[in-house]
C-alpha cells in the first residue's frame, strides 16, 4: 500500500466501510436479480455522489474536489473488493476526457453534473471485441456522428457518451440518433452495442494529439484499480477458506503444496499493487504516464487472471456454485482483462514505447 496522507486514509476507510456495509456482494446479487439492463442501484450511486466520489478528479472550480488519482484509485479499489456495480469508473473517465480536452463551455456544462453524480458518462471507443483504438471507423460530418461502438460499458445508464471518431473525441448526448442494443456479458453488468446515426456531436478540441491515448491511459489505470480490489478480495477469501476447510483430518492451509501456491500469489499480488499504485502516482505527478499505465494494466491482467483461476480451484466444488461469491470475480475478471488492452496488446504497446 502506498504511503497515504491523512485525507487519503480517511477516504479509504470511508470507502471500505461503505462497501462492506452498504454494498457487499449481496448487493450485486440484488442488482443481478432485478434483471434491469443498466445493472446498478440508482440509490447507491446517488450516495456515492453525495460522498464526493464522483468528483475526485474534477477541479474544484467545476464542482469536484480535485483530490487526485491516488484518491480516486483508493475508492475504486475498495468498491472492486465487493464487486460494487456502478458507473463510477465510466463517469470518472468521461469527466477526465472533458478535463483534458474540453472547452470552458463544455466543462461548465458537463463537469458539475458528472461530479455530483447527477449525470452519468461513459467512453465509447472500440468497435470490435478487441481493444484497438487505432481501428476506428466512426466519423463526423457537419457536426453529426455516425458509427457503431461495441461493448460500451455502462451504456444503459449513460447520459453522455465520449465517442472516438476518426479525427478525435466527441461528446454525444443520449437521445436522437443514439440507439442501444444490449450485450449481456458473463459479468452481468451493463454493456451495449451503441449505434450513432447522425447524432449531434460536439468535438473535444483541446488536449492535443495524444488526447485519445491520454484518456485511455486513465481508463487502463482506473480499471486496474478495480482489478486490484478484486484480486485482493479473491486472495483473502481463498486464504480464509484454506484456513478453515478440513480434509484428511487437517485444515487445508497446512498442506505445503497449497502454502507455496498462496506464497506465489502473494508475491504476484505485491507486484500488481506496486504496478497499479505506480500508475496512479504517475498520473498525479504527470510523469511517464503511458509507460506506467501500460505496466499497471498488464500486471493487473496477469495477476488477476492467475488469482481468479486459482481462487476457484482452491475452493473445490463449492467454488463452482452460483451461491458462493468466488465465481462472480472470475466472470468479471475476464471482462475487465479484455477492456482497454489485453495482455498481448499491452506488451506490444510497451515495446513500442520502449522503441523496440
Amino acid at each position, binding site marked *: 500500500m502506498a504511503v497515504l496522507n491523512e485525507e487519503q486514509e480517511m477516504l479509504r476507510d470511508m470507502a471500505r466501510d461503505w462497501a462492506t456495509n452498504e454494498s457487499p456482494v449481496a448487493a450485486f446479487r440484488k442488482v443481478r436479480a432485478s434483471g434491469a439492463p443498466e445493472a446498478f442501484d440508482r440509490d447507491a450511486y446517488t450516495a456515492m455522489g453525495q460522498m464526493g466520489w464522483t468528483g475526485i478528479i474534477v477541479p474544484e472550480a467545476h464542482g469536484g474536489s480535485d483530490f487526485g488519482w491516488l484518491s480516486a484509485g483508493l475508492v475504486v479499489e475498495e468498491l472492486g473488493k465487493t464487486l460494487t456495480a456502478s458507473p463510477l469508473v465510466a463517469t470518472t473517465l468521461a469527466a477526465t476526457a472533458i478535463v483534458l480536452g474540453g472547452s470552458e463551455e463544455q466543462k461548465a456544462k458537463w463537469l458539475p453534473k458528472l461530479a455530483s453524480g447527477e449525470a452519468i458518462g461513459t467512453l465509447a471507443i472500440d468497435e470490435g471485441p478487441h481493444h484497438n483504438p487505432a481501428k476506428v471507423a466512426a466519423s463526423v460530418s457537419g457536426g453529426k456522428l455516425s458509427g457503431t461502438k461495441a461493448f460500451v460499458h455502462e451504456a444503459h445508464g449513460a447520459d453522455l457518451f465520449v465517442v472516438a471518431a476518426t479525427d478525435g473525441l466527441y461528446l454525444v448526448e443520449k437521445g436522437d440518433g443514439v440507439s442501444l442494443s444490449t450485450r449481456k456479458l458473463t459479468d452481468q453488468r451493463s454493456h451495449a452495442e451503441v449505434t450513432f446515426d447522425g447524432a449531434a456531436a460536439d468535438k473535444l478540441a483541446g488536449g492535443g494529439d495524444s488526447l485519445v491515448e491520454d484518456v485511455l491511459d486513465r481508463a487502463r489505470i482506473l480499471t486496474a484499480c478495480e482489478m486490484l480490489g478484486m484480486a485482493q478480495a479473491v486472495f483473502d477469501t481463498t*486464504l480464509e477458506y484454506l484456513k478453515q476447510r478440513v480434509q484428511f483430518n487437517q485444515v487445508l492451509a497446512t498442506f505445503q503444496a497449497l502454502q*507455496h501456491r498462496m*506464497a506465489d500469489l502473494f508475491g504476484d499480488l505485491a507486484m500488481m499493487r*506496486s504496478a497499479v499504485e505506480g500508475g496512479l502516482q504517475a498520473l498525479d505527478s504527470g510523469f511517464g504516464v503511458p509507460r506506467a499505465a501500460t*505496466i499497471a494494466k498488464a500486471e493487473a491482467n496477469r495477476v488477476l487472471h492467475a488469482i481468479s483461476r486459482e481462487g476457484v480451484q482452491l475452493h473445490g466444488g463449492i467454488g463452482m456454485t452460483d451461491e458462493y461469491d468466488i465465481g462472480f470475480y472470475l466472470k468479471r475478471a475476464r471482462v475487465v482483462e479484455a477492456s482497454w488492452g489485453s495482455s498481448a496488446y499491452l506488451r506490444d504497446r510497451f515495446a513500442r514505447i*520502449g522503441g523496440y
Partner: protein
Amino acid sequence: MATQPDLQPPNENDAFREEVREFLAANFPSELRGKGSALAGVDGPTEESEAQRKWREAMGSRGWGTPTWPKEYGGGGLSRRQAAILNEEMAKAGAYNPIGGMGVMMFGPTLLEYGSEAQKKEHIPPICRGEIRWCQGYSEPNAGSDLANLQTTAEDKGDHYLVNGQKTWTSGGQWADKCFCLVRTDKSDKHKGISFLLIDMDSPGVEVRPIQMISGMSPFCETFFTDVKVPKENLVGEEGQGWTIGKRLLQHERTNLSGGGSLARMMGASLADIAKKYVETDETGAIADKVLRDRIADFEIRWNAFLLTARRATEESKAQGGVSEISSVLKKLGTKLGQERAELTIEIMGLQGLGWEGEGFTEAELAGVRAWLFGKATTIYGGSTEIQNNIIAKRVLGMLDHQ
C-alpha cells in the same frame, strides 16, 4: 543497525554534501572512475593496486564504507540521509565503496547487536577499514535448509573450545581471515544446543578445499576443523544462543540479496538493446521476431513491477518504522526474475551467448555465461525459494503446520 533520526536542519546537510565533495576531490583517484571494488568480485580477490589501496584506506579511516555504523567502533556515524548524500555524490564522481564483503553485509550488523563490548572493539574497526575478510561457516553436508541439524561440535575445555567437524559451501573460505561459525555445544537440544563462535582461519587444524562450480569458478570451499582450539572469548552471546543470533544474521543476508537485480545489473544493457544487436530488426527498427519481442516486453513489465515493489517495501518500512510485510517476497521475486533475465539474454544471443572461453567471443559475452551459471545459486543460498515460501506462508499468511 541503529541510525540516528534525521534531525539536522537542511542547511547542515548542505554543508555535509560540500564536505563529501571536497573529500572525493582530494581522495578519489581519477584512474578508478567507474571501476568496482577489488574485494567484491564473485571470482575471488584480485591484486589490489596502489590506487585501490589508497582509496580503501581513505574511505576506511573516515568510516564511510560503513557510513551508518557507530563512530566509536570505526563507522561513519552518519544519519541515513547523510549516507544517501554520500552515495549520491560518489555516484556522480564515478566512485565506488571499497569496503564490502560478508563482514559488512551480515556479520558486522549482527555483532553490533549481540557482541560484547570487547568483541565489538576488536572486530568492528578492521571491518570498517576493509582489512579483514570474514566467511560464513553455517552449512554442512547434512545441514542445508535444515540448518539446525548441524553437527560440528565445540567442546568446552575450560579456557578454550575444541572444534571438530566439517562445513561446506563456505564462500571465500580460501581467502578469508576469519569465520563466523554455528557450532554444537549441546547434543541434547536441536536449536538450543547451537552456539555462535568466531574462528581464525589460520588456526592449526583448519583446512579448506576449494570446490569448482558449474560456472568454472571456485569461490567456495569445504572447510574441515580437526581439534581446532578456539579461545572462550570468541563466543558471541551465551552458549546456546547461536540459533537466535544466527537467524538474525540471515535476515541481514536476505536484505542484501533481495536486491536480486545485482545479477541483472551485471549483465548490463537492456534486453531490447541486446536483441537489436543479435537478432534482425524490421524497417522501423523494431525486433523482427514478434514472439521474442513479446517475451522481452513481458519480462520487462514484470521487472519494472518488481523494482516498484522494492521501492514500495522501502517506503512502507520507513513509514511504519518496521519491516513491511512485502519485504518477505523481495528475495524470491528478485532472484527468480534475475535468473529469467539471464536465460532470456542467452536465448537472444543464440550460440554466441554460450561461449565458455577463447576466441570468437567478446569479454561481455563470456562474462554473461558465467553470470548466468553463477546466478543459479541465488535461489538456493540465503534461504532457498522453497524455504522463503515456507516462511511467507507460515509467518506472513498464517498458514500453520499440522498440529
